[in-house]
């Protein structure tokens, strides 16, 4: 099956000279149609940058991004605008216009993409609101009349209005309370089933990623450390960074083992990342060779697993 999204050797840079930050480097992966792919990493790992570069909200400085076989890098703006309808984004903070009624906001999206230009417009807006668990009468309200969870539902409705096939959700739950998070997770699962959406789910919350996604990409300092099916990753993380990340996350059950501190200190500055493997400065298994070369992302014996570690064969 051809992938819905195919990323090859993607790089994103900000600034120049001594202030140059290479936020994303040499990232390659595919997303299959209908798949939910999780993108995890800590702050500064480049996960949001990567998500935005995928749908060309920021321009990448190198590499290739293909959407359903079509190259997006270097695409002219008008073609990109036509394609953008199929790839939408859900943000952590939906940033709704405070002076616009919710119905007008959705109507604007429909106009932008020339959808439902006739009499079906009002019915479509009702349908979108119902789809995300709101009511048609909400269309007349303003953003401040909604709670945090409802605002995120509106953010999702706005993305769905364009009838996308691919959605990038960037920490859509982080600003919400636990009980509301569960509501939104259930909504995302429901929408995926009903609409057959393909999802890139960016999160620092490993539990939610484990629950929602089929496959996971682990980022550290702009580079991919590991890609694996969710089950396999959480059962037996292959990369030392993934191991440390999972060990540090507290499981909400006192009967389970307590979190472990495997990493000392802070991540290095992205302005001045270590040579070779970017994780080597904190890695408990680093050897001299790790400073010499960037470990390639190579397949493991298990199908569908890739890891970027020179020593992975020693513990896999």
């Amino acid at each position, binding site marked *: 099956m051809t992938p819905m999204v195919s990323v090859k050797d993607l790089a994103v840079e900000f600034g120049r000279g001594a202030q140059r930050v290479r936020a994303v480097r040499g990232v390659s992966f595919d997303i299959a149609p209908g798949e939910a792919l999780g993108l995890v990493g800590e702050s500064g790992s480049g996960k949001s940058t990567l998500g935005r570069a995928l749908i060309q909200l920021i321009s990448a400085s190198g590499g290739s991004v293909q959407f359903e076989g079509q190259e997006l890098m270097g695409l002219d703006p008008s073609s990109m605008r036509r394609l953008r309808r199929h790839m939408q984004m859900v943000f952590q903070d939906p940033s709704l216009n405070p002076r616009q009624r919710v119905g007008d906001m959705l109507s604007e999206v429909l106009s932008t993409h020339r959808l439902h230009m006739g009499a079906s417009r009002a019915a479509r807006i009702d349908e979108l609101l119902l789809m995300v668990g709101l009511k048609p009468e909400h269309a007349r309200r303003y953003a401040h009349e909604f709670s945090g969870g409802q605002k995120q539902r509106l953010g999702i409705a706005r993305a769905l209005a364009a009838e996308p096939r691919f959605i990038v959700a960037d920490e859509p739950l982080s600003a919400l*309370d*636990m009980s509301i998070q569960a*509501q939104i997770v259930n909504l995302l699962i429901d929408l995926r089933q009903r609409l057959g959406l393909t999802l890139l789910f960016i999160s620092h919350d490993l*539990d939610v990623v484990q629950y*929602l996604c089929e496959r996971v990409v682990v980022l550290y300092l702009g580079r991919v450390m590991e890609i694996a099916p969710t089950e396999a990753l959480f059962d037996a993380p292959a990369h030392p960074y993934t191991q440390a990340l999972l060990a540090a996350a*507290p*499981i*909400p059950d006192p009967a389970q083992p307590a979190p472990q501190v*495997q*990493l000392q200190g802070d991540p290095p500055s992205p302005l001045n990342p270590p040579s070779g493997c970017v994780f080597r400065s904190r890695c408990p298994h680093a050897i001299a060779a790790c400073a010499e070369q960037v470990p390639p992302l190579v397949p493991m014996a298990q199908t569908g697993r890739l890891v970027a570690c020179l020593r992975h064969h020693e513990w896999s």
Partner: protein
Amino acid sequence: MNQSQPRLQVRDLHTRLLQASGALPLVRGVSFDLYDGQTLALVGESGSGKSLTALTLMRLLARNARWQCTGQALLRDEAGQTHDLLSISSQDMRQLRGNRVAMIFQEPMTCLNPVLPVGEQIAESVRLHRGLDRRAARAQALRALEQVEIPAASQRLDEYPHQLSGGMRQRVMIAMAMVCEPQVLIADEPTTALDVTIQAQILQLMSRLQQQTGMSMLFITHNLGVVAHHAERVAVMYAGQVVEQAGVAELFAQPAHPYTQGLLACLPGRARQLAKQTGRAVPLQDISGQAPAMHALGPGCSFAPRCRASLPVCTAESPPWRAEGSHRRLCHLGEQP
């Protein structure tokens, strides 16, 4: 250490915000005990009154609003004397705050002074409370930074908060709070702004300091994973009230209040864990609706409108406390639902 007597006894704490339209009850009758060497976790969602409870105890409520606080918060000092944190004079409170009772906050950057070196900010506390001169206070500050495992502590003394990473700043906050060896530490979401690997470091550090000093800790958080591994007892707050209080193992194994049950059922990590044990997929159970508006609370249980098991009596009358041993819940339902 006297284990039988609590270090801090909070009884029927009420905090009301006084407005032109009347008094808005935000903390509604919170009671708990803190014991030496123990951690009580105060969990709940935003707006449940956890932070306000802490600020009331510290007498740090925003001064640009008018508040009415009633109840008692009895702190037992080394000599066995008790001080009611809510009724002692502001002057007496200033002697206790940052000295016997200290607090750390979620976002160190907004609590540290951006124009003072961190060493100075730590030293200020010991100068004030211990009467040390500048040189001795600086030495004490250095020791405090070393105690919180800040590398190259003697250089860091003269650095400013913006030169430190988020994890380092939180360590500085902990050093500031710990430098006078408080008996009670109130930690308000101390790791919420941190990455998970840094969170693990900070929590490990706090546990070690607690073991060394025997202080008691009130740990405010919304993260049930952190609660599970870092607290002895848990108090669950909803709409300004503690609705359930129990030992940590009991609470997770047998949550008794419908709200606590709901909270645990909506954790994806727990759903996965259960699915693994039973071999069947466990759906995430969300709690429908949202927390009530505090100005429009009815006479009954504040959770009743969202409760799956609510009875007619739940919306009519305020719920009673029911207890089995030290496991208490505020609920009408006689049997565990």
